[in-house]
């Protein structure tokens, strides 16, 4: 089966879209760098870091990797499993709290 060359092929989007996303990624990266530069601390720092991280990751996956235009069946098959890693994160948070507790109990509070 020969495909006609003129046939619309693959992902066709205007270049401007990529430039806009590129610009936003620069802005978001600058923001996350400024979080460190101004030395923000505590929950404010962590929530900002996570927010910028998720926005950047979303832009890259959705636009650069064209996930926004893929079929729902592929989208869910690829994007849902990594979310389950959060369960693993929860397990390891409990585990490392316990390890820290036993270390403090047996070796003291450290330097």
């Amino acid at each position, binding site marked *: *089966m020969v495909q006609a060359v003129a046939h619309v092929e693959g992902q066709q989007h205007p270049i401007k879209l*990529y430039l806009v996303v590129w610009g936003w990624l620069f802005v978001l990266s600058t923001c996350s760098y400024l979080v460190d530069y101004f030395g923000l601390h505590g929950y404010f720092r962590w929530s900002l870091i996570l927010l910028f991280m998720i926005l950047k990751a979303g832009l890259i996956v959705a636009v650069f990797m064209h996930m926004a235009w893929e079929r729902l069946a592929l989208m869910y098959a690829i994007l849902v*499993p990594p979310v389950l890693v959060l369960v693993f994160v929860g397990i390891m948070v409990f585990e490392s709290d316990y390890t820290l507790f036993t270390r403090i109990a047996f070796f003291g509070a450290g330097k």
Partner: protein
Amino acid sequence: MADVALANTGAAPTRPSGWKGIAADWSSDQRAFKNVSWGKAMMWIFLLSDTFIFSCFLLSYMTVRMSTRVPWPNPSKVFALTIGGTTIPLILIAIMTFILISSSGTMAMAVNFGYRHDRVKSAALMLVTAAFGATFVGMQGFEWTKLIMEGVRPWGNPWGAVQFGSSFFMITGFHGTHVTFGVIFLIITSRKVLRGDFDREARGFFTSQKGRYEIVEIMGLYWHFVDLVWVFIFALFYLW
């Protein structure tokens, strides 16, 4: 031939949208990913498995950092550079981040020009991407050298928790390896584009499949993934 079944990227069949569509795609006893070629689907599945690998690295980093009694070295100070007498925190890492993002931008445009059969622009943008990637690896080499000279080892460092070194070398080392392989494959793919392999549908030496411009997009998926992983490393290792 078999190419039709394997590489068909024709229009998606009309199916219900939303959850019903997903159920229909998966239960149809055919291919689950209707309008996605096997090459692209396999790249996505590979990237999913790679996601789990990097998740495990970042998770083990989280675990050792949370469970140590010794204070963690402050990445803001460890990765600071003194340029012209002023010490700027984390500046090298910030520059590396911008370089990798730029490489993603040029790669996205290379894919676009590929689908427009603009061989020269597509190949040139891919080579620019490869150059950005090589710069990134070079700066990582500089960073590793600097830290090793300052006494950072996988088993210890001058500033605090010994697990810092092993986490750092493991995570950035694996990421740098991914970038390096990406650069190599970018050069190979750009050569194929420039030669017109995808216009002539020349068969690849490895899979014997007909060349097509989708290969540029699949290459792009891998490259954007490398950038994606860096987003997480930057946030969780360097900024946290």
